[in-house]
């Protein structure tokens, strides 16, 4: 077993790649070290769904054969990673975080895992998640086959959901990067709560073949990493057309930060009420500083507001309507009662009561929202808001309690940006920007479809001037 210093486990992909190229470390040593760490510390955060050490060792040995011959197919060659347990891996359980599916086994790997395997990335384990990615709506972090996702920064706090294990495993240095999924906030929220960098790609850019469906028109897969640059490197491998995914846009992604627009040419829209009133008081100075830091990069920051729509009603109807169809057999069989969260059980049962006219009305309004967003983006290149308005919630706190300790702001700001951004299928990047109550908080940037390179360029610039993404919890 190689001896790595604690700090080394938090190295970025670029840093590991340099060490592999210089033959300072082998892929086998990396795989063994991270697999051992994931098996040892993963349960501490309820992050580990299934270790895949044997498979990883075999893969790493074949990668080392390539490295010996200086065949570097990708910056991800030899880099260990973890995948949310909603992605199928042939021959081993894929539980979707839910008891009714605890014994489910597929005979093929998800497309993204095939792509990562092809470039030599080494899958070392499957990571925990909220049951059924939260479909139906859940009340408590304990809504998971694996128990509540525990935050490495404070073990009395939630790691966020639904990509809970992906968030905590990257934050605790158990994997250099992880794959998460987002229907409405499941990459951005754990990224923000755990202090890591997460990218929600444009709808259709990454194939979902082999991933649990929750809402066909909203589901996306994306990278969760230590830096914006790492997100770009991973996305470049994950992205691409796939005839097995009906939602595939048929587009590829090439990470090209060197061709980024000048910061001075980028207009970023924000709503002051997000920073002054919606944000939790302890987080406001941190968000204000992040805004000032972005201004200092040269981007033009301008006030804007989201067009008015019944966003929550549209998001809920689309997701619940589609989830009701996906999980109808589970609901009608009664096995839904095996789920851990009572609210979620009820929510899934109630899905079957959503009418076709309501679903179609929501989808018609969704079309108008998309057009209104296009008009909004005629004036700005990106939208900016806190990813979540405060740090991670306590493990025992209900997630649906809302603001109780202060007045609800009179204007909405961008408090629905996660839902709205997912409805229109726009990409988003969550960047850690500081600490409130000794816990990480983050900002999100939302761009036009297929503008990932612009988001990542700003993220990289921001992270070259700050070190929030370099902070690590006491593991």
């Amino acid at each position: 077993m190689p001896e790595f210093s604690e700090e080394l486990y938090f190295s970025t992909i670029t840093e590991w790649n340099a060490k592999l190229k210089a033959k300072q470390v082998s892929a086998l040593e990396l795989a063994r070290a991270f697999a051992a760490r994931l098996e040892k510390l993963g349960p501490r955060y309820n992050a580990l769904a299934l270790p895949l050490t044997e498979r990883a060792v075999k893969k790493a040995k074949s990668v080392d054969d390539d490295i010996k011959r200086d065949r570097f197919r990708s910056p991800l060659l030899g880099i260990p990673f973890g995948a949310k347990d909603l992605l199928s891996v042939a021959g081993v359980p894929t539980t979707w975080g839910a008891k009714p599916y605890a014994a489910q086994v597929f005979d093929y790997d998800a497309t993204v895992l095939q792509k990562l395997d092809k470039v030599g990335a080494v899958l070392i384990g499957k990571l925990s998640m909220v049951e059924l990615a939260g479909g139906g709506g859940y009340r408590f972090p304990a809504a998971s086959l694996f128990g509540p996702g525990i935050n490495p920064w404070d073990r009395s706090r939630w790691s966020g959901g639904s990509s809970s294990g992906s968030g905590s495993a990257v934050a605790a240095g158990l994997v250099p990067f992880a794959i998460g999924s987002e229907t409405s906030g499941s990459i951005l929220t754990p990224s923000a709560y755990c202090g890591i960098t997460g990218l929600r790609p444009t709808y259709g850019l990454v194939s979902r073949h082999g991933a649990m469906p929750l809402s066909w028109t909203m589901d996306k897969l994306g990278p969760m990493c230590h830096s914006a640059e790492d997100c770009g490197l991973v996305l470049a491998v994950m992205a691409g057309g796939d005839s097995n995914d009906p939602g595939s846009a048929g587009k590829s992604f090439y990470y090209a930060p060197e061709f980024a627009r000048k910061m001075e040419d980028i207009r970023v829209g924000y709503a002051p009420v997000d920073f002054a009133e919606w944000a939790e008081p302890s987080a406001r100075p941190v968000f204000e500083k992040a805004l000032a830091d972005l201004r200092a990069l040269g981007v033009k920051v301008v006030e804007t507001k989201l067009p008015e729509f019944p966003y929550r009603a549209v998001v809920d109807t689309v997701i619940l309507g589609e989830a009701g169809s996906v999980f109808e057999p589970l609901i009608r069989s009664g096995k839904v009662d095996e789920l851990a969260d009572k609210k979620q059980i009820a929510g899934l049962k109630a899905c079957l009561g959503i009418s076709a006219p309501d679903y179609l009305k929501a989808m018609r309004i969704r079309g108008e929202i998309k057009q209104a967003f296009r008009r909004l983006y005629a004036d700005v290149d990106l939208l900016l808001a806190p990813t979540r308005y405060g740090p991670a919630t306590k493990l025992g706190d209900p997630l649906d309690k809302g603001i109780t300790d202060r007045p609800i702001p009179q204007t909405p700001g961008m408090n629905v940006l996660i839902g709205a951004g997912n409805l229109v299928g726009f990409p988003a990047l969550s960047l850690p920007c500081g600490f409130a109550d000794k816990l990480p908080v983050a900002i999100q940037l939302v761009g036009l479809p297929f503008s990932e390179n612009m988001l990542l360029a700003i993220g990289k610039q921001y992270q070259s001037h700050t070190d929030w993404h370099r902070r690590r919890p006491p593991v």
Partner: protein
Amino acid sequence: MLDNASMKITRRTLAISALAGAAAAQQTTSDELEQARKQVELTSQTLLKYEIAISAEPAFQFKA
């Protein structure tokens, strides 16, 4: 790196935090189901209030 060494938590505190959620979750399923159905109805009413042009088509495409 951030010094967080003082932020220790005992196993007992952790268990209490986690179980508090689980205990509070033990509401009767029928109450929860009634609430969930009421929420679906409220959402439906919100959509009903939103006027949309008759020409507006749903935001998905059928490809032949």
